[in-house]
């Protein structure tokens, strides 16, 4: 009871401190609003506005049809270029895709000679190259098939593959990156706010003060965890309902309260990591560098940016124990796929246990280092 009251009042103090730092408050608001919107507008996950050049050496009806078949929003309208410029324009990155339609293409197609048409792809355009190559192939194939069928050849395939995308039928980027943006923010903020709150008390000498009062390190650490987690949970909740759901009109399939439960459990983990890092770093610049080395990999390798399936096996095994990976996984399950508690409870449990582990580690080091550097 006494302990609860101590933790409560210390948490209130944390909140008061946080709301006094206007620059920090502004940065938090920015990262949960404008930054989310900017990411949602990026269209980074889908094929969008891909730049395309066409070398048309055929000048036939079919070649013109193919050129016109590339449409926004997937591709920008195709620009005619000369063959001798292809290398330079692809070198400087002007075009990611260049289609080369050889002379007599239409004639050869109609004659059944199966002429070759080349699609050159800039393989260094990481996300677009693969998806775009597939799209380009399909578009050209459809156009050629359509053209041929008009000229009296039947090309109905015997077996049709009907591909449907569940949970995000139009594969809209903003559905994905807006929520992942919130998740990334939660990780970054929770670690830095909780960690900096500890280092700041040490640099300002108020830590000494607390440690000579009848207040235990556990209570101090818990107050940092609770106070900072409360701020971030509220920011994340507001961002999800106001920015993501209303402003960006992203449909949410599952239960927001269930997701928020998960956020709170995850925040327990992330703030505990912050407190733990603060017991390793002696000064703010050191905390900053340490933070970069922990928070950015946690985020980048959590499956919120690139698929986990793309990592080499050893790294995949390592990130499988990262609570951030679980966070991303249950967030996707709840928000996109409408999963319930029965599906995600194991993830919740794992994240909670990792949080407890880091809090214990932090406490172990806490008292011995709490007064260093002052």
């Amino acid at each position: 009871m006494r302990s609860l009251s101590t933790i409560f009042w210390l948490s209130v103090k944390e909140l008061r401190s946080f709301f006094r730092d206007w620059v920090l408050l502004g940065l938090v608001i920015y990262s949960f609003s404008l930054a989310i919107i900017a990411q949602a507008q990026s269209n980074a996950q889908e094929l969008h506005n891909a730049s395309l050049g066409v070398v048309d050496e055929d000048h036939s009806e079919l070649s013109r049809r193919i050129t016109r078949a590339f449409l926004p929003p997937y591709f920008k309208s195709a620009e005619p270029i000369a063959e001798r410029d292809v290398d330079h324009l692809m070198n400087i990155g002007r075009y990611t895709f260049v289609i080369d339609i050889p002379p007599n293409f239409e004639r050869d197609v109609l004659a059944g000679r199966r002429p070759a048409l080349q699609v050159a792809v800039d393989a260094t355009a990481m996300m677009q190259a693969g998806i775009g190559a597939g799209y380009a192939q399909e578009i050209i194939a459809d156009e050629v098939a359509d053209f041929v069928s008009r000229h009296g050849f039947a090309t109905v395939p015997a077996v049709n593959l009907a591909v449907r995308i569940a949970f995000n039928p139009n594969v809209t980027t903003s559905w994905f990156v807006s929520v992942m943006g919130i998740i990334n923010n939660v990780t970054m903020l929770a670690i830095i706010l909780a960690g900096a709150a500890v280092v700041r008390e040490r640099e300002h000498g108020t830590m000494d003060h607390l440690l000579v009062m009848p207040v235990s390190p556990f209570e101090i650490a818990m107050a940092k965890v609770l106070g900072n987690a409360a701020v971030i949970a509220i920011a994340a909740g507001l961002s999800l309902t106001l920015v993501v759901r209303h402003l960006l009109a992203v449909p949410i399939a599952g239960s927001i309260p269930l997701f928020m439960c998960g956020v709170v459990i995850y925040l327990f983990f992330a703030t505990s990591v912050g407190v733990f890092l603060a017991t390793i770093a002696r000064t703010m610049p050191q905390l900053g560098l340490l933070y970069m080395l922990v928070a950015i990999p946690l985020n980048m390798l959590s499956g919120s940016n690139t698929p986990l399936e793309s990592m080499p096996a050893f790294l995949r095994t390592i990130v499988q124990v990262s609570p951030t990976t679980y966070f991303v996984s249950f967030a996707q399950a709840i928000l996109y796929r409408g999963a319930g508690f029965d599906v995600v409870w194991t993830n919740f449990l794992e994240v909670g246990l990792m949080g407890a582990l880091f809090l214990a580690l932090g406490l172990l080091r806490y008292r011995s280092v709490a007064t260093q550097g002052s």
Partner: protein
Amino acid sequence: MDAMDGPVARLVGLRHRYGAGVALAGINLEIPSGRMVGLIGPDGVGKSTLLGLVAGAKQIQDGAVEVLGGDMADVRHRQAVCPRIAFMPQGLGKNLYPDLSVRENIDFFGRLFGHSRRERQRRSVELMAATGLAAFADRPAKKLSGGMRQKLSLCCSLIHDPDLLILDEPTTGVDPLSRRQFWELIDRMRARRKGMSVVVATAYMEEAERFDWLVAMNAGAILATGSPEALKSKAGTETIEAAFVALLPDEMKSGHKALQIPPRTKYDHESVIVAHDLTRRFGDFTAVDHVSFDIQRGEIFGFVGSNGCGKTTTMKMLTGLLPASEGSATLFGRAVDANDMRSRMRVGYMSQSFSLYSELTVRQNLDLHARLFHLPAADAKQRIIDLIARFGLKGHVDQLAADLPLGIRQRLSLAVAVVHRPDLLILDEPTSGVDPMARDAFWELLIDLSRNQGVTIFVSTHFMNEAARCDRISLMDAGRVLATDTPDGLVRARKTATLEDAFIDFLEESDGRALVVDEAVGLDAANSAAPPAVNSSLFSTRRMLAYAIRETLELLRDPIRLAFALGGTAFLMLIFGFGITTDVNSLTIAFLDRDNTFESRAYLSELRGSRYFAEEAPLRDQRDELQRLRGGKVTATIEIPPGFGRDLRRGRPVEIAAWIDGSMPFRAETIRGYLVSMHQQYLDDLAIRGHLGDGSTALPADVAVRFRYNQNFDSIYAMVPSQLALQLALIPAILMALAIVREKELGSIINLYVTPVTRLEFLLGKQIPYVALAMLNFAIMFLMALFVFDVPLKGSFLMLLLGAFVYVIATTAYGRVISAFTSTQIAALFGTTIMTVLPATMFAGMMVPVSSLTGLAAVMGRFFPMTYFLPISVGTFTKGLGFADLSMHLLSLAAFVPALTLLGLVLLRPQEK
């Protein structure tokens, strides 16, 4: 006295305010030249503000300041007289760099004032000899005692032979011997440079006796000016301190009376604190060396000594904050135990560093502490009302602690320390920096606690008149107790006139610390003093290099930061180089084969053989399918309808259904691409094997996809060069931003305001080491790309090197711009992180070409330097390009350098507000 040739400074109608608080309320003053002028008055009356304005460190808000014959609001005049003024800000060695040695600090200032190497050498030898610092030339400033630090600060101020020397409380917190030596030093310097004017603010009234001319200030206004004798005779008092009090307006005087100390009530020798041979070592440095004492109940026991002599460490050991290396201590008869909550309830502690939450109000601070000590709510309420009344905090209850004048703050600190009615108070320099009247008021409270409530008080101080008020004192120096007795006892033992003299006597005896000064050198120097080498040109390479050299030294002295900075990029490069790829493999897939014929198995075997997919247990039914997609157990499913084989054989059209988990759009698109191309492959195979009789399913044209630059489409060849660009954007920007904000937070930015260094020199000088560091990062990552990742460089190395060089200049400049908006390290850290990580990873073309971005993302991408370096890095590595193709990108990148530098320049304040 020298002939007077007009005032050295003239202030007309000078007003200055901070927010709602008035610091100076219309000051009119002429400060005579060639004299030693003292500014006296309580804390927070505007002394520091006035000196800051005269030195040109602060921006003038209202009124006029003329110094050395010109207007200080005029930039050109300020630039011109800057080299003739020296300013030593308040706080021990605040303008010094703690990681630099004595010699390096002096050298740095010498460079700022444009001295050549020989000249610097001559002057620093001369100054170190004159101040007795020569023996410690290679010791870092942070390891100097307070007195030595102030002497070093003075050396740095005097390196350029100023005409006007401005000292803001130079001796606060310094032991009496060092203080005496400091003033002797100033006298010698004045003898050497006859025309030099000195303006000093001081909290020690007794020091004011030695000045030529005094300015007594109170509440932002001037009470009186004149020589010490004139002031004393005007007020009809014996001492300056008494004269000052007499000069105060009546309403302020009314509460003040000479402090009376009633005799102590004896509590028959009940020991509250007993220490035996208490020792604390930090590495090979002994901070506290076998200290023993025994403090009785109700006693006021004083620890007296300079800053850094071990007072704080001893107190921390008593509170359990630091474990003792040797020896033992008991509180209330029990051994000190860090986890003993009960003894903590009986102790009140006031640490030296201001131990309140500055972001809370007075009432919130009291309230928080009452809660933490678990006072019952009703009792707490009454207690807080009582404390507010008794400690005179009534007018301030809703003010933030940060906005309180120092004297009031200390009262609040004490109120907070006694909120739970402790039996023992441990106070670490509670009155440091507090003016005499506030000190007296504070002591009245202490005496009341001790004499009327039986509270034991253990207090440390460096004020001799405070030491004299204690029942007993220990004189401390360099971790050892020199003597313990009543103040009178100590004076009698040494047969001196005052306690201060007795202390000095003890100090000199203990380590023979008589001032080691080579008088001959000092006098010699006077004869050979060259005219000051003033260089107030707009840009000086030497001044820029002064900052570059200093920053480099500091970086080298912080091995942890250096190791993180170098190893950190390599670490991130390693895991991202392997971890962030777009080669999606081993996607989980499950099948629902409702036909289960040769034909259906043949279709599925096409997928089963692929390295892209990893098959999971077959699906039972459509409910199972949904369940597993929802839980993320599978990313795709294929359902083959019943009768598939039969229909296929009969040539009837059939449809296979595929579901893909769309929660991650990129992955969904990739899976879709894989499935579609495998399906096409199946159809082609079918046609070739002639299963369908005619070749009609084969496409009438062959669409060949050729991946350029990287035939196998391995993303590592794009990712590794991208990582190089990404890492060079993150850590250099953050280090740069922190380096600048750190100067703001620690106060050494004052040197930018008061020395001839210009903003451009400051910014460029600080940038040079970080650009060099980033180039080292580049070299490490370049080698990693070649030998760890096996990504060869196909294009021009020279192009890459040049691009990287321009790029790191731009990214450090970017960090510098962000630093301009923030004043705390934490905000700088967080701000730089979110302002670099997001655009770098999402909007600079690493994953998606910038030309495909829309909206805000596109704008943010265009204005981020990485957007233009990425094509250079990827181009030279993987596309095999050189200057011909990449010169446009290089030019765009180069445009960031002047733009960001200019922005940083505009945003950096030339003076304090």
